[in-house]
Every structure is written in C-alpha cells, then in structure tokens.
C-alpha cells in the first residue's frame, strides 16, 4: 500500500546544470511532457560559480562569463515555462519496461514516484580526492577540492586560504589559481604530474604566467604535513613512468592545498542498472543520440564525458532531448545498423561510441599525447582536417554530415597522423 505521489512524464531530466537545463528546454520545445530535477536549492550547476569568461563562444558566438552564460538559459526556461523541482534528490532509478522507467525522487513534500518514457541523466562530474591521487601524510584542515574552493569563494564570498599549493594543472586548477591571486593570496606553485599542462594553453598564460605562478611539470605532491591546518607539502620530481625520483624531494610551506587533479563522470545511479561503461571516458557508452546501453536512458554533459566547454555540454543536452523525442515517436531509435566508432592512432577517447550513418554526428575526441602539425582523419568517410597543435586538454570536434557518414560500411575510425607520417 503506497501513499507515494505518482506522476507520468515523457522525459525526466536528472541534474539542473547547463546540460540538464538545455535538455529540459529542448524537450519542452519539442512538445514532450518534461520535468527537470535538481538536488540543490538553485539551478545552474557549475557555471553559476564560474565568474570568468570563455563560455558561449561557440553557442552564442559571444565571450561570456559562466554566470552570464547560464543566465541566458534561465531566461529561456522562464520564457518557455520549463517544469522543474529543486531540493529534489533521485533516490533510485528502476527500469520497468522499454517505455517505462521509474525515478524515485525525495523532495520536501515526500517521495515522488515518476513514471517516464525516457530519462536524460545530466548530473555532472565528481572531483578526484586527495586519497585517490595517493597523497600520504597528515590529514589537517585546509585541503579543498577546486570545485569546493570555487563554491566557497565565488558563491559564498569566503577566502579558503592565503598561501596555496594547487595539485593539478587542469582548467579548474588554473582558473582557481588566478582567483586566489586576484584576491591577494599567494599561489606558491601549481604541481602537475604530466610533462605538459592539463588545461587550455590560454589558461596557462592568463592564470599562471600573468601572475608569475610557477608551474612545476613532471612533479607530484607526495605528502602533506600539518597539525591543525596544512603547514607544508613535500613535492618530488617524477620520471616518465610517474615514479618519484629519489633525492629530488623538497618542501613548500603553505596553509592551503587545492586539489584539481581531474574530474570523473558521476554515474553511481546508472552503474546500479548495469549500464555499459567506456573505461576511457569513465562514462556510459552511447550512440549518436546519446542513448546509453539502456533503451531510453540518455546522458549528456560531464556525466557522459568530461568536457572542456560548457557550450558542448549544452549541445549534448539538446541532442539528448532530440534523441528522447525520436525514441518516443518511433518506440526506439531507428537504425539499420549500429557501427562502432573506433579509436585509432593517438586518440584516447571519443564519443559517441556508435553511429548509424543515417544522421549527421558531432564527434568529440581527445588525443592521448600532444602533437604538432597533424591531420585528424576519419579514413572511411574521407574526413581530414589539419591542426596546428592537438593537446589532451583540448577536445577535437569533428562535424560529420549524414552524406559523409553514409559512406561508412562497418565502422569509422578516428586517428591522428603527423604531416610527415609514413605508415
């Protein structure tokens, strides 16, 4: 006997950041009965705390701050009348049937059982922690992940610390380095284990070089010391195998450690449904409409793959909504055949994982190693573009038309070939 409130929808969007908001807007525009669920008490996700520009260059052809970018979507939501609930947490997802999933949602009004034909999962990513990166030593106060530090500073106006060491040179870490420096804190160093920076070069310039913040490549923090609060970190140089080189240890005095060591798609709820995961992205395997291995469950944004640009995340949200529409109208995504997208030379990851050849597709990929003066190719369809430089931190975007893709027979392969490459 259940007193739970039950409702029926065509689309449930889980996660109210840019991907989810874009998905909910598009799904609503397409005439689907849609509801957007957000755990926090505000919508907006990460862009709400991104006070720096670099958003919207693709989508709006304007250079906006994260905050301005997400506000555009708030306006659209209000205009169209997208239905949403905040302070709503998804307890579990049940797969009942092809056209029936159940999403159990805990809200302040009680538990809502939502029966929906499709789900769009846009919960974003989680940050790697101190322990995941193998740092030993004390566990004092004064250690924050970069996202947490950003929320403290740029939503709540709290300064996390004064003398900062940042672990990881991905964009999040670089952005926070600049924020700390602007507010008068001393960023003693950014420590990066790889021999090249983890984030966009523009950010290395405007976040580190502009402020004379040292970037220590091929270095790692091996331990932290501090009684009540952080007092110092021990840093070591590493070899090509990322092993500490004995005798190269040195200490940096600091009161704050910010960990920007990478993001991982947050797929806990989906893992319980035994979904197919791509170990390269850490996220679900998807077809060109971003449908996962579970029919009618779509993923977009950082929950699918860690994106560099919020613009891509928004596009993915919209694509997922379009996929949901097609799924509902056709009782499934129609395709003659699903062809795998294969990773060739120097491609570490690529989405989507399957294409039909019947629709145009945007492929997003990342290289494993930086290279200069290369061609990015998809030989089966005759695609070939020149790039001055490719870097792991910068996604490569391939827009392939339906006509081009129809040439593919069994699969498509993305590969990187230097100009002077001889097979």
């Amino acid at each position, binding site marked *: 006997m259940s007193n739970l409130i039950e409702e029926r929808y065509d689309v449930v969007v889980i996660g109210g950041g840019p991907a989810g908001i874009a998905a909910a807007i598009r799904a609503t525009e397409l005439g689907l009965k849609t509801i957007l669920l957000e755990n926090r008490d505000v919508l907006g996700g990460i862009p709400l705390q991104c*006070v720096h520009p670099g958003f919207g260059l693709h989508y709006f052809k304007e250079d906006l701050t994260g905050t301005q970018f997400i506000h555009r979507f708030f306006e659209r939501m209000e205009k169209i009348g997208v239905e949403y609930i905040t302070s709503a947490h998804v307890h579990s997802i049940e797969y009942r049937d092809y056209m029936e999933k159940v999403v159990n949602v805990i809200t302040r009004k009680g538990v809502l059982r939502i029966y929906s034909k499709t789900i769009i999962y846009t919960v974003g990513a989680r940050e790697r922690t101190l322990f995941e990166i193998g740092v030993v030593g004390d566990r004092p106060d004064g250690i924050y992940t970069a996202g947490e530090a950003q929320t403290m500073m740029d939503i709540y106006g709290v300064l996390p610390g004064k003398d900062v060491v940042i672990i990881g040179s991905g964009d999040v870490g670089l952005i926070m380095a600049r924020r700390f420096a602007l507010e008068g804190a001393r960023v003693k160093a950014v420590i990066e284990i790889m021999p090249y920076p983890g984030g966009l070069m523009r950010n290395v310039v405007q976040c580190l070089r502009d402020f004379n913040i040292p970037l220590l490549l091929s270095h790692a923090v091996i331990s932290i010391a501090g009684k009540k609060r952080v007092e110092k970190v021990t840093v070591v140089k590493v070899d090509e195998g990322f092993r500490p080189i004995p005798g190269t240890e040195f200490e940096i005095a600091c009161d704050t450690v910010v960990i920007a060591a990478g993001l991982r798609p947050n797929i806990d709820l989906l893992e319980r449904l035994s979904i197919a995961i791509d170990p390269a992205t850490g996220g679900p395997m998807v077809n060109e409409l971003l449908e996962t291995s579970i029919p009618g469950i779509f993923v977009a944004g950082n929950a699918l793959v860690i994106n560099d640009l919020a613009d891509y995340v928004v596009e993915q949200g919209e694509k997922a909504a379009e996929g949901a529409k097609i799924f509902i109208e056709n009782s499934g995504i129609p395709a003659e055949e699903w062809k795998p997208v294969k990773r060739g030379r120097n491609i570490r990851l690529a989405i989507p994982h399957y294409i039909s050849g019947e629709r145009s597709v945007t492929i997003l990929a990342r290289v494993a190693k930086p290279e200069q003066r290369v061609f990015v190719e998809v030989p089966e369809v005759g695609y070939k573009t020149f790039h001055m430089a490719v870097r792991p931190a910068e996604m490569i975007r391939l827009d392939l038309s339906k006509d081009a893709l129809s040439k593919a027979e069994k699969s498509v392969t993305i590969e990187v070939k230097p100009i002077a490459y001889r097979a």
Partner: protein
Amino acid sequence: MHTELELTCILCPMSCTLKVSISDAGIDVRGNQCTKGVEYAKQEVTNPVRHVMTVVRVRGGDIPTVSLITSKPVPKNCIERVMEATAYVELEAPIELGQVVIKDVCGTSLVATRRVRKAT
C-alpha cells in the same frame, strides 16, 4: 632591432600558437586561425590588457555575492588597482545582470554578471 617571440593567443580555446616578429617595419603575426589573433598579438606586445573578474558581497540576496567583470579589458599593470577597488564594496540586493557596480577604475567599470534576487 628585431625581436622574434612566440605567444599563445588567449582569446578563445583554440589557443593558437602565434609567431610574432617585431621590427622597425612593424609587427608581423603568423599562426593565427582568425583575424582577432593578429590584433591580440599586437596588443599583447605593446600594451597587454586583461579582463578582471571577481565577486563582492551582497546583503539580503538569494546568493551572498555577485560576480563582476570589467566592461573593457584593462592594462595588465592595472589589475591590482581594479581588485583593490573591490575591497570594501558591499551591495544591497537586488542586483540586475549588467548593472554597473563600480565606476571609473582604470578607465573602465565593473558590471554584474549574475542576477541576485532579494531573499524571500
């Protein structure tokens, strides 16, 4: 006098590597994938400018801070002065997107980039 240097363009995520050649004849830029890169390189070697972004406290709002950005980029050596101008600013909700919050600092002003509603 002839100087050659390499710059990374920061205008967009392409982060093009620019090869800049400065001589009496002028500034020559190569490696850009759009025309903006040429202007950027020229500016960067003569008078580098940057946008400055920060937050200031807001009383009585649904969020306790509002994010700000300079309307126009300011010379790099002015960044500190812009930041110091925000040191004692405290505002009252509501704040509209685009509202001018601090005027006349380093030849520009700081505008709100987030809407802050009055707290209910």
